[in-house]
């Protein structure tokens, strides 16, 4: 078993000294090492000034917020910072040439997001949603992005994600090991991507005595595409889920929605299991899981349970896990042939903002009319949940604006008012999102960028 953190920094393997605290954030550590390119602008994952890139063994480049990661989580990973690109690299040069920097404080983070983007591709707006720039007005940054190319650089040699323990920080590599640890250490903080928990390390600089980090548990890793659906490992990031959705037409309707969950950096770290663990009423994965009828696989030493997600979510930030249990995987059934799948999110700011209201819908048809509708809303109640009256209102009707307006009148919510929106606003917004389904169903542009 490893008791020292090993990682690859800018291509060079590093073994950290035994006394290195595993809950020090990557950002604090890098800056203390003299790599001050990555900046702190918020310590909460909101600004992207701290962005660095995880280099996958397969060449994938995942930008992450260095302020949210802790060193223990990064055992076995390869990290590249702006210093690791070198002064002559074409990505920073393109940004300088396009005058894409003013004060420059956001720039190293933007360089790293852009460097990852040259390999990962996709919409540049989306690639940069997690990088705030207060100066340039963004336009020049996008112009620079359009002129960049993948440098073709190979990733550093991979490390094996083995089991490790750094003081009270446990990094088991198998499910058995994880469950055994969980049984003897029920007080340990269960850590996955850390995008919810990370704030305790980054914003509050806490050092909890016992941490159980599950990222390396073999049984929890990866997204598996099966004929019946997806098996999303508890340790699989949103980025991995999104990649699987992009590769398979059945899941394509989820792509624009998932691409608005946090930012690329947050999706590189965050997991569906974490969304279920936190069980926030505005967790964006939850309406999708509800609409598709997902099943949560949880385990403890005594055995495994398969819990339908609607039963898993038991209340405001509460779930059905008992203290010794861990989420192992989420099973997402494939939508039936010919079904209509859609997911909508309304937030005050289009990108990189928490939902005010969200909606996921799975609708099947018979003879041109709705056979079954599953409509799940986030932000409308103490927990994300389906709305039976609205579902019933659609049954037997063609999916058009009239039917959806009717479903809107049947909503049985009494939403909370907070500063993201008043109760009336949430009701109106939920109705608006329902009506937007008609456009989507008709294949009309419902997207904000259409």
């Amino acid at each position: 078993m490893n008791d020292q953190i090993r990682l690859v920094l800018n291509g060079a393997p590093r073994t950290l000294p035994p006394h290195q605290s595993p809950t020090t954030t990557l950002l604090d550590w890098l800056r203390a090492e003299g790599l001050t390119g990555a900046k702190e602008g918020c310590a909460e994952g909101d600004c992207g000034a701290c962005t660095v890139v995880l280099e996958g063994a397969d060449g994938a480049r995942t930008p992450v917020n260095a302020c949210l990661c802790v060193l223990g989580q990064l055992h076995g990973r390869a990290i590249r910072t702006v210093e690791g690109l070198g002064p002559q690299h074409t990505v920073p040069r393109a940004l300088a040439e396009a005058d894409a920097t003013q004060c420059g404080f956001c720039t190293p983070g933007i360089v790293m997001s852009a460097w990852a983007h040259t390999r990962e591709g996709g919409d540049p707006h989306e690639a940069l949603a997690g990088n705030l720039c207060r100066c340039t007005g963004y336009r020049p940054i996008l112009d620079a992005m359009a002129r960049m190319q993948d440098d073709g650089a190979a990733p550093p040699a991979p490390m094996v994600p083995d089991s490790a323990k750094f003081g009270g920080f446990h990094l088991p590599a198998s499910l058995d090991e994880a469950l055994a640890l969980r049984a003897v250490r029920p007080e340990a903080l269960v850590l996955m991507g850390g995008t919810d928990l990370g704030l305790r390390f980054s914003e509050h600089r806490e050092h909890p005595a016992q941490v159980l980090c599950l990222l390396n548990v073999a049984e929890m890793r990866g997204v598996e595409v099966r004929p019946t659906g997806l098996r999303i490992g508890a340790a699989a990031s949103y980025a991995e889920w999104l990649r699987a959705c992009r590769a398979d037409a059945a899941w394509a309707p989820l792509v624009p929605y998932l691409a608005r969950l946090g930012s690329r950096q947050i999706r590189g770290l965050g997991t569906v299991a974490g969304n279920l663990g936190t069980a926030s009423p505005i967790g964006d994965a939850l309406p999708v899981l509800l609409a598709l009828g997902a099943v949560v696989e949880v385990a403890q030493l005594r055995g495994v349970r398969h819990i339908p997600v609607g039963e898993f979510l038991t209340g405001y930030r509460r779930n059905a896990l008992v203290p010794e249990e861990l989420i192992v995987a989420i099973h997402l059934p494939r939508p039936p042939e010919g079904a209509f799948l859609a997911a909508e999110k309304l937030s005050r700011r289009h990108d990189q903002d928490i939902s005010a209201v969200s909606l996921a819908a799975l609708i099947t048809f018979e003879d041109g009319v709705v056979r079954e509708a599953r409509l799940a809303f986030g932000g409308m109640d103490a927990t994300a949940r389906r709305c039976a009256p609205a579902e019933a209102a659609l049954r037997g009707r063609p999916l058009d604006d009239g039917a959806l307006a009717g479903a809107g009148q049947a909503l049985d919510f009494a939403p909370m008012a907070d500063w993201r929106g008043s109760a009336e606003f949430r009701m109106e917004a939920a109705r608006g999102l329902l009506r937007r389904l008609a456009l989507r169903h008709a294949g009309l542009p419902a997207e904000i960028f259409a």
Partner: protein
Amino acid sequence: MTGPLFPQGGPNMGQPAPRYEGRAKVTGEARYPSDVRLPRTAHACLHLSRIGRGTIRGFDLTAARAVHGVIDILTHETVGDAIRQTPAIYQGGYTSDSLLPLGSAEIAHWGQPIAMVVAETYEAAREAAQRIVVTTAPHPSPAVDINAPGAETRALEPMMVQAGDFDAAYAAGPIRIDARYTTPAQHQNPMELFATQCVWEGDRLTVHEPSQYVNSVKFGLAEQLGVPADNIRVISTHVGGAFGAKGFLTQRTALVAIAARRLGRPVKLVATREQGFTVSGYRAETRQHVQLAATRDGRLTALRHEGWELTSRADTVAMGGASMTTRLYACPNILGRVNTVAADRSTPGFMRAPGEVPYGFALETALDELADRLGMDPVELRRVNDTQTEPVGGLPYTSRSLMRCFDVAAATFGWSGRSPRPGSMREGDWLIGWGCASAYYPAQAGNSAARVRLTADGTAHVASAGHELGQGMTTMMAQVAAEELGVPLERVTVSLGDSDLPPAVVNGGSAGTASVASAIMIACDAIRARLGVPRDAPYAALRAAVAASGLAFVEELGEARAHGRSPESLPDMYRGRALPLGGVELPDRVQFAMGAQFVELRIHRWTREIRVRRAVGAFAAGRIINPRTSHSQLLGGMIWGIGSALHEHTDIDQRNAAYTNANLADYLVPVHADISEIQAILVSEEDRLVNQAGVKGVGEIGVVGVAAAISNAVFHATGRRLRDLPIKLEHLL
């Protein structure tokens, strides 16, 4: 977008030289004050008041002291009289507010620093700061905002503007508009946090701090600490954005300085994003009342603009934007008034286009209301009331190109394709709105000095304590020296952001370029005069002249005195008192940069989501030294305008005036995707009067008018007139 990435030089525009420090910034090599590493640094963390106005009854520091690594805890009980009370900038001093740091048991507002922990590590300092137990007696009913019952309203008589007889003219006006507007509290939120590092060597203090005015920090600290100013050096080489937040000396600096003195070690403080909301000033919320009267052909006959601005109990701060909105259009009968409303809040301050953004929103929206009432095109309404003579004092503008900006921007935007009736432009489920507004910003300058050295090897070096906030100061300094002397640009080096260099104006009020460029020009003139080289002499001749002089280098100091400042004011610049002057404050003339903003937005019929699809701005601001960096400033400004209209809003807790969204997840600033197409056009304009350099400044004007253009576009899309910012989805349901 195709074509060049940025505008090329044109009439009265210099070369689009690339950013001087661009490479250092994109490689991560640029060192910001928080990146500077000093050996044996101890780390500080502030503890801010978690009650609103009230009194500290006592501290229990036991738990905090018990945290491993804690070295020192400063409170009003432990600092004693180490820091002296000094006047705030508004009373002719240096500080951004007049609260004495850790001065007493009185708490003036939520978020006031009431303790600071110093520890071996930041983690320990932070943990200890959280463990400080404070017993307090909160005031039962603090006044939390501009509408609070306990807030005190005061009319600022010196800010009154009057011409003709407003009351009579308004009463007789054939068409009248009478409308009230509000704008919210907003925070600058530069990406860089408020950092300070202090290190003493003997009795000499060095401060590393991002600043728009190193000399305000230097001379203010000297007063506060009672040490000679000559012993203090303030370094601020790179500043990660400022926007007014880093203009003057805040309370934190003296605390870090005395902590470092107590410890005999360097001390570093980086305030968190949340703490930053009360570390410095912010844009105060306002209420405004506009009344307009006009003839049926759109000529203004009466204009009244009155504003109420929130301030703190400790300081009377007002941006007084009515002094400008009353001087934009021809009108015989004018009344402008400004009031402050003092509440139990931290002292507000400057935020990019401080008076122009809120007051410009109100007046330019009111004009749109008038245009709608008259059935007149809003551009034509501005044309009918355009003037070359300022309406209150009858003074000339040094130059004014408002309608040229409108014509250029309107043509680019395609404004003639607008169907005027509200709600008449649609695309599927999207309602389309087009709106426009004027932009304006006072052209100002302050006393500044610069030293230029021409070396025998043909290189030149320019030095001034101006600041690189990202606006392009460094590049501009190099360019002006290169142009004036005829030295190739790549042979010019620059030093700035250091109080040991010749002093420059505070980098605010868009006055930095005009002021420092003028000083550099004077220094270059002196060098040429000393060498006997004529203005357009080739580089070879210049080099030959230095060689012939037998000197290793020739060096001259240029001191530029701003128009309107007395000769006696020059020494003040060497005491950290160089503030901008201009705009409407001069006895003989009025100086404005002007522009036109056009916006197209879409509002979804069902969800009311608002998307700005494109924005076109055209701006005339005198000489443009570098069209590339200027263009970047304007684009950034326009995005600010969009944020200001649609997102930015500091939420205030009605119980204690806490800022409840003091983080970047909840205080929304625009992100990449918030705008699809944005265009800033530089309209050429020559102004030989405004200052030696002919420069008006572009740092702030880009923001002005955008919010009005957006609210006017919302009206055009929906027929709903929204007079309260920010515009929220709920407002449109």
